[in-house]
């Protein structure tokens, strides 16, 4: 059914991702396919990491934890964006192609009125990605 699952993660809000992570892990074991965890960071120092390099290291560690916890195969894919406030969606859409995923499992935020003006990340990915997209409410 699927060959590769992509799950975007925000290391700064790890606690809000639990349901999405569980879901992608369950699907991965069901179809016996790997999960690619994609993290987008700023080039400027952020609360998560001082440099993109440090960020990549943290993402690797995160992936190692996930694969061990759920007993699945996983990879890390770190990306840097100039202005993540607005470029996040584009970076993620690019990542879908780069990692060759055919299913995206991602967490959503709680919908609010501003989603009518700026589409949510999940909404935009679902609208534009060629892969199937599973948006999991947090």
């Amino acid at each position, binding site marked *: 059914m699927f060959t590769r699952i992509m799950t975007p993660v925000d*290391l*700064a*809000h*790890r*606690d809000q991702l639990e349901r999405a992570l569980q879901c992608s892990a369950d699907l991965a074991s069901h179809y016996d396919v790997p999960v690619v965890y994609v993290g987008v960071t*700023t*080039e*400027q*120092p*952020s*609360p*998560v*990491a*001082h*440099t993109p*390099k*440090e960020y990549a*290291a*943290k993402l690797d560690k995160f992936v190692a934890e996930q694969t061990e916890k759920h007993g699945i195969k996983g990879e890390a894919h770190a990306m840097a964006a*100039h*202005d*993540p*406030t*607005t*470029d996040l969606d584009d970076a993620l859409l690019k990542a879908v192609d780069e990692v060759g995923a055919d299913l995206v499992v991602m967490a959503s935020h709680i919908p*609010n*009125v*501003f989603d009518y003006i*700026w589409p949510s990340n999940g909404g935009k990915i679902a609208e534009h990605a060629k892969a199937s997209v599973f948006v999991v409410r947090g």
Partner: protein
Amino acid sequence: MTDENNDTGVPAPEGAADIIDTDYQIGQDNIQTRLGPFGFDIHNPVFMISGLVVIAFVAYALIAPTHASDFFGWLRPALTSTFDWFFLWAANIFVIFCLLLIVSPWGSVRLGGTDATPDYGYAGWFAMLFAAGMGIGLMFFGVLEPAYYFGTPWGDEPLGVVRPFTEDGTLIEGNIEEARRMALAATSYHWALHPWAIYAVVALSLALFSYNKGLPLSIRSAFYPILGDRVWGWTGHIIDTLAVFATLFGLATSLGLGAQQANAGLEYVYGIPNSVTVQVILIIGITAIALVSVLRGLDGGVKVLSEINMVIALALLLFVLFAAGAVGIVSGFFSTLVAYVQEVIPLSNPHGREDTGYMQGWTAFYWAWWISWSPFVGMFIARVSRGRTVREFITCVLIIPSVVCIFWMAVFGGAAIEDLITDPQGSAVKAQVIDAYNPPLSLFAMLESLPLAAITSTIGIVLVIVFFVTSSDSGSLVIDTITAGGKVDAPVTQRIFWCTFEGLVAIALLIGGGLTSLQAMVISTGLPFTLILLVLCVGIVMGLMSEKRNT
């Protein structure tokens, strides 16, 4: 707040950069909250104090307009006349400092670590440097300043150069060459190495401490080598608040005054009435475009607009160049370069000068002005300069823009002076700059003497407006980052807030009066910032030394 950074301070440098070991965690003092549908992630002391102080000063200017304009109208010239030597020497030090960095071994340090690659190609990078740093000034002063120095009857000729006009306005043929040469050299002096060195110092220190040392992208980080962990406390709050304050008022007053200028241009060219209503509409329009730009982000908004602007500006430059006689102007450019090299030392020496009208009224004023803008422009340059080596960075922020600015001045100033001497009686430039000192119209007066004036004047107005947009959007990004404790990925609502706030301040001051007095106040902040910048130079050297030693 989720904190993933418990092992901060000891991230593996991997031989790439010499990260500073501090217990401070970026965003640790931030509050993240939700107000109705709006999400916030703000550094509360800096955000609140900046916001409240701005409102307080606007209130002061509106409630006691006479007092405010008397006070700041006195303060600004008092500072630039009393401390003229200080401003001139500080700017000289910045130039020498930057030039030394190019040839020093520290020049090979790469911003962002040894393996970093540049975020932006040269075209986009230059476009953003110019649009944030000077754009609007080139439009405003490109004609005004050379024409003014050439023909000034007010006794503020640079270095007391000869006047080309007699009292009754007839040309003195023998003096033209010397007056032209000095007018272009003295203008270039204000737009070449010195201002860009000021920007380069601020930008380099921010880029170094952010990309190589892992500190948040905020003005306070540059003080880390000197103040240590105190920069995360109130000392740092005050530094950041001052930067936000100068940036916001600098932008808002320029926006208000710029709307008046654009309106003057519209009246001159199209006969659109010069009224507060039109100006408020202009501010709303500019702010609206800037809003779209910040919402589209750095790559999709600011960069795209900057590039569009560069193309239009280049087209206008080439048009003026060819319409006003390319051969004469290009040779004028080379003689301006030579004159600049010859005169830059006498012009930048503050001692034993008799031309105080020029030195205090123009040079010291400019230096204070560039310096008060430097936190904003410097931070923006830092944001887009990751991956360059120090040598490449200084060369590209100092030398290349200087040459471009001198060329711009040679073209626009050269064309204006040509217009002045061809027909002194009928010259529109002379009428607007010398006879009736009317700065906003100087550019349009010069374009009038060239063919296709209706089209080029329209392009001129469009350029002025778009340059305001590019200042406004990059400024909003900078203020947002500082008030979010150095986070560049704060919620989009905050950008909207600052961009709108800036427009509202401009409108309030435009309707209530007080633009000029508050702009004088902003320029007055140039004095404390000059001290700060001198300290930054020391910090840069300390940072580069440790970088060189440990990587």
